């Protein structure tokens, strides 16, 4: 297998994901409603309750909307990745997964490419969300939109790999409601997405540490800092490290017989 084969395969998987995205664009548009509700409604109600002091990367007092926007970017990716991973092994994507796994290229390569392709589609949604966020005066520096891209890619790969790992190995979580209650909400609420962690530390030190051990916290911080053109090596380092570990575990541990890919009999 030559590099060109890998390249054609990579492009083919990305292309298919975009074609499907384009077919289902109304569904994706409605997926933006959730983060927008948080940004416009929740944030408006909440900012009265919560005072935010000056913390890095911000250099001045900021609105609550500005604070939670990066967290909501993370939320978009979180929901999409989990939903995407479930569809890979349980429902909509089964046919395409069968075709995917018939490729002679190595399986880890195929799976990571597939996760990246799904990630690119959610990153597209993140950018639409950030554009709409301008309407409520969330205005990161212009270069921030570009600087945040690597963090978004890492986050989507990390969460996609986590979703794949969970969907393959935890039978009890094969429906979205289960994943929502046991993965998405805990990860989202026990992170720095909605409140700065020093606030959490005041309220409950043990919860603070739970948040610190949540990789989603560091992904959100990597997004937040790079969006405001600040370098946060710890957030980046942890996100990258966890991404590599999860991607290895998810691809090496992938077993089609633990999914519905093979057909009804193996279910």
């Amino acid at each position: 297998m030559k590099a060109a084969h890998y390249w054609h395969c990579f492009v083919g998987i990305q292309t298919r994901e975009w074609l499907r995205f384009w077919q289902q664009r109304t569904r994706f548009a409605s997926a933006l409603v959730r983060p927008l509700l948080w940004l416009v409604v929740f944030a408006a109600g909440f900012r009265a309750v919560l005072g935010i002091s000056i913390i890095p990367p911000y250099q001045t007092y900021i609105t609550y909307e500005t604070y939670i926007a990066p967290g909501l970017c993370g939320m978009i990716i979180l929901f999409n990745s989990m939903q995407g991973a479930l569809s890979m092994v349980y429902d909509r994507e089964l046919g395409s997964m069968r075709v995917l796994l018939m490729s002679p290229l190595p399986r880890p390569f195929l799976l990571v490419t597939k996760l990246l392709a799904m990630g690119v589609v959610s990153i597209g949604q993140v950018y639409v969300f950030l554009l709409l966020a301008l309407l409520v005066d969330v205005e990161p520096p212009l270069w921030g939109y570009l600087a945040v891209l690597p963090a978004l890619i890492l986050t989507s790969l990390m969460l996609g790999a986590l979703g794949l790992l969970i969907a393959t190995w935890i039978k009890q979580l094969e429906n979205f409601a289960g994943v929502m209650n046991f993965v998405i909400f805990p990860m989202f609420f026990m992170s720095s997405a909605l409140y700065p962690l020093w606030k959490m530390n005041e309220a409950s030190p043990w919860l603070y540490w739970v948040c610190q051990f949540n990789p989603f916290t560091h992904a959100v911080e990597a997004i937040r800092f790079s969006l405001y053109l600040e370098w946060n090596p710890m957030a980046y380092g942890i996100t990258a490290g966890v991404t590599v570990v999860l991607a290895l575990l998810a691809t090496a541990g992938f077993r089609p017989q633990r999914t519905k890919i093979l057909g009804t009999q193996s279910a």
Partner: protein
Amino acid sequence: MTIEASNLSFRYGDKPVLREVSFALTSGCFHALLGPNGAGKSTLFGLLTRLLALQQGDIRLAGQSLKQQPAEAMRQIGVVFQQNALDLDLTVRQNLQYHAALHGLSRKEARSRGDRELERFELLDRANDAVRQLNGGHRRRVEIARALLHEPSLLLLDEPTVGLDVASRKALNEHVRILCEEDGLTVLWATHLIEEVRADDRVLILHQGQLLADGNGQAICDAEGTRDLAETFHALTGAG
């Protein structure tokens, strides 16, 4: 290309699904894998396509073990799955291009090979239609055309006629037989429908995970002392 399966056993948990299955497929021939539902056909296909990991025994394609040279083996195999594996909202051509890309073909190459196959399958005029607009028989033909894009030497079909009406079933079966003759393709056609099998086919009868018969259809009937394959099938499996 020769395909040999030796001593294949497979179990889901405690439940054995295949027991000591061994066979060799003859290059360029049509083989019918006949078995009632639950006989282990899909599991056997899972092993041949590497969707299931081998537990016991080995499969060799042109002498190369699936365990040691999986990539090489996958290049030689074209598969049509029992369930639809097309993107219904994408066009026929887009579906073919996805598959071709997965096999490392460039877009240009994918396009020319895809059009060639579609022409052969009399579907070229539908290339830009969404798969959803095609009837069941045509969808199946697209899946076979797709399975042949990377020019495999072995075509595996797992109950490809499920859900088709009698006329489409017959047409599809004949179509694959022609491919087999024209291209020298080795075909393994799994089915539980006896009418899809001819007396002079190579027939493998699988029942409860065991290979009960393997050989020329007529020879099997003679050995069993039965009049035709339907009777043989009934006698061996209690089905049909």
